[in-house]
């Protein structure tokens, strides 16, 4: 049994891991940068260790410092949270050779999932539907043209090593292909030191839907259903919910089953998320897999009743899923998560500074995950997530009503937040009807502009 875990992260996810450890009776070690001395994870962990200056590269991303901190505190395991070192295969490997239990998949599986083209091939082989696209990188313009015609326009060109929208090019017809292909390779090379690109079918109005899975170290993988994550801005998720208004029990079961087979075959263990695009006809296509716990994991916890972070730790400790999960995974009720970022809700510019007042919402059907408090200083070095408000209800309508109330019955002063934006989403008719795709936020902003022009 693991006795002590070092948490290689900060903010709300560090508190989330501390909570799971406390619930399991495991001692915790917090690490922190000099900018985080007043952070709550430092306060709530059993031990805390300063590992470097504010910049993440020299602290939270500093592998020798993190490993060394685990060594001198006798922590047997490291929970990486999300971001920072969570999907760094090299770090997982260092843990493996240092004899530290890395709470996540094996380093070779992380590496596989980090290479999108290889990951796609691996899951496609096991029957997971993937977007029609090129088999691996496309080297020449001629090859690209041939592939594009086979897939059918519009297509999208993506960097093999990429992420976050960089190096992507949409090609609507054969005429645009030449220029886009070369531009995409150029951007990929500049951004990721690797010019490889591949082609995929382009979906005009996709929904973003992802499946939560857990795998144990004994070859069993279980799907815990999907999350709807279409409410994003520039590929940054703002709001997630479970279940998706567009996935029914049959589709959930079908995709879940094929994922369980595919991921068991690649030896996937611990928590992971499989991301899909849904096209206008409701068909799902695999796009990538995230080999970590996600920011939005609480909505799945709310509808399944399963503590995913506790499950991660027990899996890393060698327990089989049979011991961790109930016999049958049931989806009950509905949950919505709003990410409250310290950002200007209009411009989305990060808003670091002192949080002069922070009164989180509370009450029936509301869960909060946060590391903020009145008087806390949001450091400018890290991400802008201030809090997650999670509302649950017997159905989607009740969850929306409660989220609306939570947004109204909370106070954040001193920094800008995305609370006003979320209030607008909660009052939007299309959102209420479940009619939206990944362009929802863009359209919402346009609606607002239109309204203010009229008025």
């Amino acid at each position: 049994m693991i006795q002590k875990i070092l948490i290689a992260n900060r903010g709300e996810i560090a508190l989330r891991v501390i909570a799971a450890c406390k619930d399991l009776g495991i001692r915790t070690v917090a690490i922190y940068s000099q900018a985080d001395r007043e952070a709550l994870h430092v306060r709530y962990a059993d031990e805390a260790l300063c590992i470097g200056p504010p910049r993440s590269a020299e602290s939270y991303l500093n592998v020798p410092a993190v490993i060394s901190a685990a060594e001198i505190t006798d922590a047997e395991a490291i929970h990486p949270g999300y971001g920072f070192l969570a999907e760094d295969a090299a770090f997982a490997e260092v843990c493996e050779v240092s004899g530290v239990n890395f709470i996540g998949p094996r380093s070779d599986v992380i590496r596989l999932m980090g290479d999108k083209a290889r990951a796609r091939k691996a899951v496609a082989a096991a029957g997971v539907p993937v977007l029609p696209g090129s088999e691996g990188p496309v080297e020449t313009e001629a090859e690209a043209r041939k592939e594009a015609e086979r897939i059918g326009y519009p297509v999208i060109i993506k960097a093999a090593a990429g992420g976050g929208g960089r190096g992507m090019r949409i090609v609507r017809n054969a005429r645009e292909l030449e220029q886009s292909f070369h531009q995409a390779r150029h951007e990929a090379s500049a951004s990721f030191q690797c010019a490889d690109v591949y082609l995929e079918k382009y979906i005009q109005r996709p929904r973003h839907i992802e499946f939560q899975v857990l795998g144990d170290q004994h070859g069993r993988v279980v799907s815990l259903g999907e999350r709807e994550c279409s409410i994003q801005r520039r590929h940054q998720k703002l709001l997630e919910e479970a279940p998706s208004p567009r996935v029914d029990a049959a589709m959930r079961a079908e995709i879940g089953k094929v994922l369980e087979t595919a991921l068991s075959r690649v030896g996937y263990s611990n928590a992971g998320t499989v991301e899909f695009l849904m096209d206008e006809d409701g068909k799902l296509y695999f796009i990538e897999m995230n080999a970590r716990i996600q920011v939005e994991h609480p909505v799945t916890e709310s509808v399944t009743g399963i503590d995913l972070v506790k499950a991660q730790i027990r899996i890393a400790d060698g327990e089989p899923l049979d011991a961790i999960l109930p016999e049958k995974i049931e989806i009950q009720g509905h949950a919505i998560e709003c990410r409250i970022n310290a950002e200007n809700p209009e411009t989305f510019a990060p808003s670091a500074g002192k949080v002069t007042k922070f009164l989180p919402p509370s009450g029936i059907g509301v869960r909060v995950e946060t590391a903020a408090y009145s008087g806390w200083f949001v450091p400018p070095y890290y991400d802008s997530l201030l809090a997650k408000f999670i509302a649950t209800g017997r159905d989607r309508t009740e969850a929306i009503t409660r989220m609306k109330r939570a947004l109204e019955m909370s106070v954040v002063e001193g920094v800008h937040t995305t609370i006003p934006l979320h209030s607008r989403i909660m009052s939007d008719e299309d959102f209420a009807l479940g009619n939206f795709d990944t362009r929802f936020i863009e359209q919402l902003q346009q609606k607002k502009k239109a309204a203010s022009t009229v008025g």
Partner: protein
Amino acid sequence: MNLDDIKELLKAVTDSDVTELEVELDEAKVRIRRGAPERESAPQPPYVVVASGAMPAGVTAPALGPGPVPQPGPTPKASPETPEASEDDGLTLVPSPIVGTFYESSAPGSPSFVEVGDKVAVGQVLCIIEAMKLMNEIESEVAGVVVKRFVANAQPVEYGQSLFAIRPVGA
């Protein structure tokens, strides 16, 4: 408004007999007070304390930024000893540049690199910090006399933890 402007305001207030000044200009907010602050921390209405305590809150704090964060953090529980000496006494503190284990000598049984009372030169090895099986020699950045050692042999140290206090030569 930048730091220089604020400094100018400070001077202007000092030269006047004004006790309090508040300015909101563009995105900036500045509040300056002076005189008998004892009264405020005494039997005052609670919120006044809040306002006065942490200096002009709001925008000025960010401007100051983190920089050399003052050591007394909330719970650096792993650091068993904290330095009492400070640069104010003319002493130079040698902080650990990395997380690891402190060793006083190159091998068990060998003499310590330095003892309290020793003179050290710039570049002289003071100790070793082991991290991930690597032995990192920590060198002195000043010439002077070792006045204090804060850490026991084989003790774990965190980033920035003080290892030695050195009185620079001529100080």
